[in-house]
């Protein structure tokens, strides 16, 4: 590719950290005020705006509060809870992420009927102007099912898995899977979910894999049926930094094999930098920053920032490139990968929970109200 240079570095060195300042104590976010909603389309006159807008200092574009610390990644034997075939399916594909506003009157007990309607809807949309009787045989087969065991918290709604198969016109009865997607919620914000009226189901994270038009159709059906909305979920550098640190921290328990980071620099022509770190080195760096303090192993955002600074400083010493001027595009280890565009791949079922918790949180932060 003309105009693109890839720098690949394999490095070992002694860590000398800049910015090893005193660890800043966690900024305590104010205790959450239970969110109340009024019988009104607007905020009831003379009541103060809800907590989302009142935390200066940590406002994102959307004005939300971003957590400053989270628990370290912990291995969790998902295989024991979830059907291994399903797990294999989740790990096989790369998923495109989207966020979803809460579904109105979604019932897990009615998935059969949803399959029928979704089938009819897709067929009708494909053949504009032809009416489709619901429940008739069509060229496609849609199955909507629950994926038991992904949810970790009792407030989390069960994950819903949708698969679309196309039926061959002639002969063989083998169905060909053409599209799959799932709606999930793992360790979703307790208070937010509690604050929703009971006829809403919050499944904020939508992962899909398959042709774009089918994704659009499925989204459109959900939007029309459950009065929800889908929006693309991009992963910002903070999220990717978190993943890099969380995954690196897993190295002693489960070999991460490599830590690959890629940046895009704002140069003309654009410069992509692929930065591969030996897992042991990465872990040593992380270990020098993060000290495990007993049972409640929490990681602070400052530690994550220091970790990334350490990696960036090293590159600067060798190549005189400030990585912080560019955008972190991708993070990958053998446990999984995540791309800035909102694409993920799950590499290990044991650490799936950590990844999904983080992504659920990102998705919930996008929820508009």
């Amino acid at each position, binding site marked *: 590719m003309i105009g693109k240079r890839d720098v690949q570095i394999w490095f070992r060195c002694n860590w000398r950290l800049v910015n090893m300042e005193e660890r800043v104590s966690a900024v305590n976010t104010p205790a959450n005020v239970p969110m109340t909603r009024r019988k*009104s*389309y607007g*905020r*009831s*006159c003379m009541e103060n705006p809800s907590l989302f807008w009142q935390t200066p200092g940590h406002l994102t574009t959307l004005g939300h509060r971003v957590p400053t610390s989270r628990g370290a990644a912990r291995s969790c034997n998902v295989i024991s809870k979830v059907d291994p075939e399903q797990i294999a399916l989740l790990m096989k594909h790369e998923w495109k992420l989207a966020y979803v*506003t809460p579904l109105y009157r979604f019932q897990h007990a009615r998935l059969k009927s949803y399959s029928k309607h979704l089938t009819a809807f897709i067929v009708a949309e494909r053949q504009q*102007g032809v009416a489709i009787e619901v429940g008739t045989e069509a060229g496609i087969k849609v199955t909507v099912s629950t994926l038991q065991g992904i949810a970790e918290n009792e407030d989390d709604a069960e994950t819903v898995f949708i698969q679309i198969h196309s039926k061959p016109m002639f002969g063989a009865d083998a169905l060909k899977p053409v599209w799959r997607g799932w709606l999930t919620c793992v360790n979703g914000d307790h208070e937010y979910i509690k604050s929703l009226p009971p006829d809403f189901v919050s499944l904020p994270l939508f992962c899909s894999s398959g042709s774009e038009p089918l994704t659009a159709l499925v989204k459109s059906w959900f939007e029309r049926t459950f009065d929800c*909305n889908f929006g693309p979920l991009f992963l910002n550098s903070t999220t990717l930094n978190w993943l890099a640190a969380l995954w690196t921290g897993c190295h002693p328990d489960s070999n991460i094999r490599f830590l690959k980071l890629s940046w895009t620099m704002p140069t003309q022509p654009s410069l992509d930098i692929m930065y591969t770190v030996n897992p042991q080195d990465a872990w040593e760096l992380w270990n020098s920053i993060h000290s495990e303090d007993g049972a409640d192993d929490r990681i602070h955002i400052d530690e994550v920032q220091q970790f990334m600074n350490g990696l960036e400083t090293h590159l600067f010493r060798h190549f005189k490139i400030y990585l912080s001027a560019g955008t972190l595009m991708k993070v990958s280890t053998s446990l999984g990968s995540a791309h800035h565009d909102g694409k993920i791949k799950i590499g290990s079922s044991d650490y799936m929970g950590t990844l999904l918790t983080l992504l659920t949180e990102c998705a919930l932060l996008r929820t*508009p*109200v």
Partner: protein
Amino acid sequence: MANSSNLPDLASSELSEASSGALNNRSLRVAEHLRKKAENKPFELALKYLSNVQEGTVVRGNNELEKNLVVVETVAFRQGLPPDAISQLLDLALSLRAGGVTCLRILKFLIPASVVPQEAIVRSVSWLCVGKMNINAQVLFLRWVLTVFDLIDCKDRLRSIYGFIFSFVTEENLCPFACHLLYLLTMKEHVQPYRVRKLMDIQAKMGRQPFLMQLLAVYKVFRPELVTLSVPSRMRAGFKNYNSTWKAALSAVQKKNRPEAMADLSLSLELKGKSTSRKRKLHHLEVPGLSSAFDTSSDSKVFRMQELQSFAQLLQNIHNIELPAQMGSLLGSSLALHYLDCVQDESAFLRLNFWLGHSLQEEFLLCPEDGGSDSLSEASAFLTTILSSQQFLQEGFLSTESFLYKFLSVWDGSLLRSQILGLLSHIPPMSSNYIKTLVFEPLIQLYFTSNVFFKCSVIECLNSMLLRWLTCHFVNRLEDCADLSVNTNTTATMNLSGFVDTVTELVSFVGRLATEGLRLENCHILLLNHTLNFYETVCDMLVKYELPLVIMPPAGVFYPALFATDSLTVDRLGYIMYRYRKNLTLAKKQEQQNGQTFHISRATYQDFNKQLVVMVSCLWNSKSFSPGTSSEIDEHLLIQSKVPKYRCCFDLVHHPAFFKYAIEFHQKCWPERTCVDLASIKVGRYWSWYVEFLFCQGFDGLNYFIQVNTGQSSSSSSS
């Protein structure tokens, strides 16, 4: 028979009555009446003859039949046919007693004068089922039914033979017309799985036909769980009109008979829903179409939003209207907004807010790179829709509000300015430190870095925000007074002192904006006027809105207005000071009456008095900048300025705003004088004449101000 001829008769007599008003015309009218009666005689006879035509009558060369047909035909085209005649003629025609040709001929002149009895249609459908008629006659008959559909007196019996009519869809030639008729008749109970299946078969045979699609679309409205359909945007035309044969005659007859019973001749019904098709990848700026979810309640009494056509229907069904599948679709129609105003369902508002918040966020906060010019017009249309909905509901949406707080900090102040500021003026009051961080801080940065027009719109926006708050406060007060016993949502209401704090914050914020803005923009006249608009609201808060708060304008607003070069500004300042006086007087009176400690501080009274003294001594007493007033200026400085007679340079005669009037007055008083001596105006009765002259120019504000403050007896500062 006599009965049957009654109607056209009556109508014509009414007509003649209307045309002739005078009394001596009466005999003429009676004669006319008799003549008409006589004229009707042959019609009755002809009708009688026709209804007695037996099967097997020879048609060809039958002069008597021909003659009678002509008589009836003439009457039909001139006056229309009464209901009885219609049913007799329909019977004659469709039974084919007088042959196929006559049948077609009769159908063509079957123009109803008033209504069509449904029995006649029901009987005709049964003739149709016999199947003797040729296909052309059947088509013509159905076309006729569609044309006169709105004139059928009652449709319940017709609905009960829905199944028979449905059987016509299998006939290829009849199908389009049968579908249209069914479309008009369909109720929820008619939509049955076997009918859906039948229509599917026909669709498989005939391909996608607009009439089938329309009928199925209605089926989808009633039973979305049975059938689904996506109507392509270019095929949304609805049904064709089949009324060409009768249109002209029918409308002529109806115009003549009863204008109010006019049938809507454009029977083509369009599906409500998306107005235009948008070729846009990101569809989040589209108000979704009305549709119902497939798992809606099976209760047949439920009324769907899509069926809603008129306000009357809304009122009749308001207790069992079902909300649409997507709440956002309510913003698309004004009828739906009326309903939204009555909705009490918290989930419904949450759904609306999720959708709206998502749309705004995706368009303005997350995808700014997708900002082409055409999408900008779309965005502006979208915001305008929200704005007009909010204006209609007189309340802002929660999601718009939270969007605005986020958007203000990234806004450049020019993108969709009028809409954004319009939405901003809808935000409800909140405690003063929130409004500072969420609204004022981002706004002040934009204000000082933008041009004068933006400054004006900001002040205007804050003025309407204040007006809304005050109105809201006033209405709440009234409601509180109305039911003191039911005090349920005390927690939801900000207490009075909190509200006063917020309003104080807003007013002092605008005071700062205006002071600095006027200085930066050299006392731009437009900005000054918007500022005075704002203070016109502020000065009347106690009298008009019962809010115990009086805040005086800062010096940075007061003096530019007082020394403005245009008379209107000074006049408005006069009006504002007059209203301040009224409010403060009322406050004082309330204080004395109730004996309670009132909230208006001494300082406010003192401020008012100072400004009043300055104003009176400038305009009236010709003692500008004199010692003792707040506008005192050092004598040496005034001498240095080399302005002659600086004490009186801002009185009503010499004030630059009124200079022109003084000259004019001078010319009128002393037309012979060649050198102008304005000082002579101030002498004796000329002064009061001059003041009178000024008031005649329409300076009402000044008039009030001077009357109240400088009445002969009262001293200048009386409060």
